[in-house]
């Protein structure tokens, strides 16, 4: 069996074990599920490393390479978070998300092609890695928002403040806070990704910003998360209840993650894509 298929399967198995862990809460099951996900991550990382050795360049030169790296980052960011917070059911969806990204990668053209001159830059390396970590965090925030919206009707009201003191145990009704923490983790990466991208563009094309569709959409992504970060300061003043605000923000995170993915893979559908030099596969 190829490594890709094996990785896909291990992701699915890890996901199932997270569901089991939710029903049967025991320490061994907890470590088994985390272990499985770490195994899937390692396999995914092997895939990335193998690819970059075969291609002879960092694995970000086309959509296929970026996607396998994206899947790898998603698993990585989740694993890091699980060591900090008790994530519970989030792991099930996070590993499914990584699996879907990898599955999408397998549908892409995986031909190794020589890297074009503009991509030969260390700025590009930092740029892509930070972006992918940011995107991965937003993927996890997407998952926690889904869980928040799904579990909200079942959770009891009025006990928010008690549990929120303890970071260790996240209860279902606190998934909104968890989303916030993950976005707060990812947003600096997104910002760094944008800034290093601008510096790289300046070096390669002579301009740090030229309103290219790819640049514009990464700005839209950044603005979307900026709105997410600032609205908690507005809505209470407008007499919106806290629970309504949380729901609205959770929905906003779903939309924002949609924007992330559009920026990543959807730009080819834009009428202005032909003018862009960053769109995958436009040339």
């Amino acid at each position, binding site marked *: 069996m190829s490594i890709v298929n094996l990785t896909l399967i291990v992701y699915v198995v890890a996901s199932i074990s997270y569901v089991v862990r939710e029903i049967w809460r025991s320490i061994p099951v907890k470590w088994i599920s985390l272990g499985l996900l770490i195994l899937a991550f390692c396999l995914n990382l092997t895939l990335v490393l193998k690819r970059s050795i075969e291609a002879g360049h960092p694995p970000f030169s086309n959509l296929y390479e970026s996607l396998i790296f994206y899947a790898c980052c998603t698993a990585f960011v989740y694993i890091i978070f699980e060591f900090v917070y008790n994530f519970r059911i989030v792991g099930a969806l996070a590993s499914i998300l990584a699996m879907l990204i990898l599955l999408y990668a397998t549908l892409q*053209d995986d*031909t*190794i*092609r*020589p890297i*074009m*001159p*503009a991509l*030969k*830059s260390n700025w590009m390396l930092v740029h892509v890695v930070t972006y992918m970590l940011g995107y991965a965090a937003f993927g996890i925030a997407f998952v926690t928002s889904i869980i928040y919206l799904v579990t909200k009707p079942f959770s009891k009201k009025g006990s928010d*403040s008690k549990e*929120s*003191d303890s970071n260790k145990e996240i209860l279902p009704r606190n998934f909104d*806070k968890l989303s*916030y*923490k993950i976005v*707060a*983790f990812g*947003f*600096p990466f997104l*910002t*760094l990704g944008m*800034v290093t991208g*601008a*510096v790289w563009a*300046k*070096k*390669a*094309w*002579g*301009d*740090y*910003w030229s*309103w290219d*569709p790819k640049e*514009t*959409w990464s*700005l*839209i992504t950044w*603005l*979307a998360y*900026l*709105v997410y*970060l*600032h*609205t*908690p*300061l*507005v809505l*209470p*003043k*407008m007499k919106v209840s*806290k629970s309504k605000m949380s729901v609205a923000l959770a929905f906003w995170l779903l939309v924002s993650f949609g924007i992330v993915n559009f920026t990543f893979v959807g730009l080819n559908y*834009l*009428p*202005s894509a032909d*003018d862009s030099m960053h769109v995958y596969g436009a040339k």
Partner: protein
Amino acid sequence: MMGSSKKNPAQLKNNTIGEDKQMNINKPAQSKRKDTNKVWDFFCSVKLAVIIILVMAVACVLGTVIVQGRAFDEYTARYGSGLASFIRITQLNNVFYSHWFSILLVLLCANLICCTIRRWRNTFLQTGFVLTHLSLVLILIGGVIKFQLGVKGGVNVYEGKSVDYFLTQKIDSSGRMDYVKKSLPFSIALDKFILEKNEPKYQIVTYVKDKDKQKIIEAKIGKRQRIPGSDYRVTINDYIPDAELKQEPVNESDNPDNPAIFLQLFGSERLIAEGWLLAHANNYHDEKKQDLRLEYIWLSSQQEFDNAVNTIQNAHAKVSVSVPELGILQDYSLELNKTFKLSGSEYSLRMLEYVLNYGDRRPISEQPANNPAVQVEIEGPDGVETRWIFENFPDWDKMHPAKYENIKISCSNIANSHMTKNVFRIYQAPGENKKIVYIRDKQIVETIPWELEKQYSFTHNSYQLTISNYYPSFNIKKDVVKKSDQIGTPAINIRIDGPNGKLENWLFADSKYATWYKDNNFAMIYESTGESVKHYISDLRIVKNNQTVMEKSIKVNDPLKYDGYAIYQSSYDAEKLSYSGLQIVKDPGIPVVYSGFGALCFGVVFIFYVKPFLRKKKKIGNEVAENEYS
């Protein structure tokens, strides 16, 4: 954390007391001037921030959904005249440089500055907040400087030449891009342009015909790969970086099923020609310049051999004439200038001339038999008609108006009617029946028996013949061999397993033909993915007052900077490599923007990583303190 913590009483208690106190001091001061306060509040509010950010996001979406910076005609063609004029009025054809977008940016700036001033507190924890918000202001200011004072354009420089200007783009009143020439305070000389290419890469493309599916598979030795959605499996057995197809004659058996000889012809000790003659395939060789032909004739019995050696057989050249309505169908042998009477009619026929290659000006002995033709003269009641009859194009005369349309003429074997001046016929039959017959001017001049590897000369000419090899069952063994270790013409040996068993074959890179599997449903080619560019480098020199002030080899990602200008490698003449395309940028705003970038990165890291970390530490400290005092 930042947003939710403000409204959270449990956490407010843990915040530093200093921050809360300062907030209380600010408030009474503001409430004194009520009217200005409202405007001020509005400019400080997060509400405005969120609105601006959202509007900007929408503007960005519009700026990518609607193509930007085209001529207005194009918008009319694309969206219709109503929508096009809406786009024109709202400047949606140029969103990011429109007036309303500028206003948006000014508002954003104002908002950022106001909120920073209002929240200004001299505490360390505020560092991140101040840095991020002011960094954005810096970046915007830098952008304005670029827009006002910066220039960006391009110029093509030819190798060995220099330029002291460049061209910038400008949108004219009709919305079309226009070029404006800008002069430079120095000149740029291109001493040399270098293009480096990557080593060519190769790929295997497979094709399943009934599914009309193409797939690129890995060229990896030893791996058995299934072609998805089909029953075919491909294994690559071997790879040669520089392969050559060697074709080696071999003898398969002693049974003379495909007799062949290897012949050498010398003229005054100099080798004129050598090669294999196959009795059943290409059994002759013409040496047109020498008016000479070599033939190899295999006969299956002694009797045939004896007959053949003593006669000059020639396949008959003939001209066939038919007149369907008179029921005439007559063959004539090719004899020039003889009048044939068409019996049962009033016509007579004469052959005037024949050629082996119509239109060829050379003497007939040098013509290849590409387009043999005979010129025929027909005499009848209506006078004389001449026409050319082509052996290979029997319908030719039908397409051309002729006087005697009812007479159809065709010809065959014209090439054989011409016998070269010198003919060497090498006869062979089973047993020791071997003879060389030398024919000159259609007369047998000499007959000599031959043996292998002996040189024969003739009394009436100066040629020598050697028959150095004889293969009764000639065949060609194809073999792929390595020419060198470099990448030349790579070849791979593949094995296809499919419904009709296995097939092994060599695939040469960029061969004109695909390799088909036996069922004609699966094909493979091995092709190069095209040479790709690795680097392109321009050796530039900056010249000012006839003096070289700077020299640098620039390439993509490595520009030259001089006197506030940055010169980038941006393109090149792909066809003739005669010029190098340079991009020339002057942007005095760069230091401002880059400090903004630095502050922004530092600021966000501070807000989201450093501050929570410090808070947590402080919180633990407070708890300890609380415990001690209680």
